[in-house]
């Protein structure tokens, strides 16, 4: 399936800012089942976007806006071809657990086994693991499919309940959250209780009416590495496997590795963020480029998804006192 995606991000600062440096992860990944044909960034204030590929293969763009401004707008437009992932078997052989452990002992995917910032175990997580009986039995695939369904069942989707960077305990307490919470909770259970390598995926979902997750926003799910199958995507928010409707943008250990935007600037005192995401299927490859180039305000914009969720920009205050303390923290090998 060929998609056109437009991801619009707007920061409005309460006071003017300057010397802003921003890093974004918005370009869809290239992989065996996905290819990004076209990617275009429009920045306001205008800036020269440079890019690099990080050690996980994510393409990161970064740019500086030295002048005084009070609003930052990022429009990322892309055209992505996504093919259906290979069909999974109904189950795996029970020896898959042992195969997995062998690979782990050899050091494969070491990072994706470890508890990370958002997937460190808590008492509530342990309680959930007991409740859902997350243990090794049968074969990995069977257990994962059951877990995917169980998390979907146990948690309510609520766009207002948490923020993208809330600790999992918030969602665990209220049994509600957004796609990041569903994903972090499943990641933590898979790593800590099934001891399988699992990674966080941020991206987009081409929505259908019956999906649980909200349209107009970015999406998150996880991938688990299974012997013989490679990375398999699970979307616990919607209780589905990642498939042709899932567009991968970045992978990491958890959200902290791959926020869509991360920035530092001088001045200001807080900002308001609005994000909108539009994913549209393109029929026929011929007119694709033209569609991606459609004017920005074509009237079909879905309602803006407003939240303070992705408030990742931190002001680069020069508080002398705090700086003095950090100067002392510098260990210096003396």
């Amino acid at each position, binding site marked *: 399936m060929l998609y056109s995606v437009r991801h619009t991000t707007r920061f409005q600062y309460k006071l003017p800012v300057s010397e802003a440096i921003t890093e974004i992860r918005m370009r869809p990944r290239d992989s065996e089942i996905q290819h990004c044909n076209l990617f275009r960034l429009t920045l306001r204030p205008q800036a020269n976007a440079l890019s690099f590929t990080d050690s996980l293969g994510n393409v990161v763009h*970064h740019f500086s806006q030295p002048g005084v401004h009070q609003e930052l707008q990022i429009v990322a437009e892309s055209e992505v071809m996504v093919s259906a992932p290979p069909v999974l078997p109904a189950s795996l052989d029970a020896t898959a657990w042992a195969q997995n452990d062998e690979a782990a002992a050899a050091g494969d995917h070491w990072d994706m086994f470890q508890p990370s910032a958002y997937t460190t175990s808590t008492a509530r997580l342990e309680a959930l693991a007991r409740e859902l009986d997350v243990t090794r039995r049968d074969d990995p695939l069977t257990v994962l499919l059951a877990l995917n369904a169980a998390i979907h069942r146990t948690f309510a989707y609520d766009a207002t309940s948490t923020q993208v960077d809330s600790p999992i305990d918030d969602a665990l307490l209220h049994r509600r959250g957004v796609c990041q919470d569903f994903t972090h909770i499943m990641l933590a259970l898979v790593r800590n209780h099934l001891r399988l390598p699992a990674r966080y995926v941020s991206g987009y979902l081409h929505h259908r009416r019956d999906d649980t997750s909200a349209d107009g926003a970015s999406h998150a799910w996880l991938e688990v590495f299974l012997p013989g199958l490679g990375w398999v995507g699970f979307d616990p928010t919607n209780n589905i496997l990642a498939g042709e409707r899932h567009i991968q943008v970045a992978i990491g250990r958890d959200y902290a590795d791959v926020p869509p935007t991360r920035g530092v600037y001088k001045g200001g005192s807080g900002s308001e963020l609005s994000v909108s995401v539009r994913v549209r299927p393109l029929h026929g490859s011929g007119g694709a480029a033209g569609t991606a180039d459609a004017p920005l305000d074509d009237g079909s914009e879905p309602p803006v998804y407003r939240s303070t969720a992705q408030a990742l920009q931190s002001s680069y205050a020069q508080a002398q006192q705090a700086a003095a303390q950090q100067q002392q923290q510098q260990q210096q090998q003396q």
Partner: protein
Amino acid sequence: MLDTELSIQSGMPAPFHAYQLDDAYDEMFSSAGRPRDHYKRLFRRLMELTPEELEERQQAADLSFLHQGITFTVYSDTRGTERIFPYDLLPRIISAAEWDTVERGLIQRITALNLFLHDIYHDAQILRDKVVPFDLVYSSKHYRREMRGLDVPHGIYITVVGTDLIRLPDGQFAVLEDNLRVPSGASYMLANRAVMKRVFPGLFRNYGIRPLDFYGQALLTTMRYLAPPASGDPSIVLLSPGVFNSAYFEHTFLARQMGIPLVEGRDLIVHDARVFMRTTSGLRPVNVIYRRIDDDFIDPLVFRKDSMLGVPGLFSAYRKGNVTLANAAGTGVADDKAIYAYVPAIIRYYLGEDAILPNIDTFLCSDSVQCSYVLDNLDSLVVKAVGESGGYGMLVGPHSTAEQREEFRRQIQANPRNFIAQPTINLSRAPCFLEGQVEARHVDLRPYILYGERVTIVPGGLTRVALRRGSLVVNSSQGGGSKDTWVLHE
């Protein structure tokens, strides 16, 4: 041991009355009253001087440090207190033959550690070959995933190294710690020498001592060599955390010696992956940064987000190769004290040689068998936190209290990966002038190694002294002092 406490024969001149030998290797005496060859002239000279004359010179030296403002900061409260780094009048002397071994050993070690860093940030062959356990590397808090696949100029990661050496009771030099991040102390080495030349000019002239003065120049040449190819006549700066940092004096001193600007994070700006400094004549490009700030603080966009000492976007310029950081980011993984245990294996793996300078036996608490041994022997071992330096996070078993041992037991059990232990080594002792007489105190040695077009090792280094009687801790933050170190031409 019998006869371990031999006093110098009566009839010895005043300064040595209280001097005693024990199990530790003595730098000056092979046996009571018998100085080693390379110390003989100093011995004779000390005989000629009255304690009053020595005292006078000690005071002249102290005053000179005070006036120059050669101080360091101790973190006891939030503001930190400035103190003079105690200086001992008597030089520590190393013979040419001994130095030759040290030099070869250090070059070998630094070469191998540099190859190790390149490997673990690229193909990680040494981990695949199971020479070093991958989880030790990947779990090190100084392993920087951002460095994976990134190429640094000339493949040089560790430009400035200060390796801590000690002398074992048999006189052999051994490596205690590799300091590969931001080793400090070179300024004290240079200041000690300058003062020594002033207070003991006569002695100095005839001893055949190899010079150190070229350090600033050599440091500059090394930094210049690492400049990005396109930078022409490179602009080099020293990046300091600022005036509250304990090593601020050193930063100002080295910047002056090298003739380069001393900058703080707020002086630098990154635009389109290029680094500039804000000057009165506008923005000036910066090509090489001799940074004296830890990785964690250099770029709030990539590392610690609350850092106010760093430069937002600096890492993007580094990644593009537009600016060189010396030392490179991520070198701390190779001086992790758990990795230290594998350095002899690392040398063998990359160079096919045995280590010239031995390691100290090290117990890794990450290994459950070794860990239980450590927990059973806390009173005899030295326990160290793997990622710390400067004498912080350390337990010296034989000198510890029961509460301190319990505290460490708790910490080790909570996070075994974070600790290693070593037998308590009786560091060698050297004569020090203390309160009107000469007494023996434990010392170590930190030579400075510069890795540029070639490896340059300053002959000597900083000899640190545990000034408290019987103490084995030489760190300045823990009551240590220092003395001039002479390496002889022959």
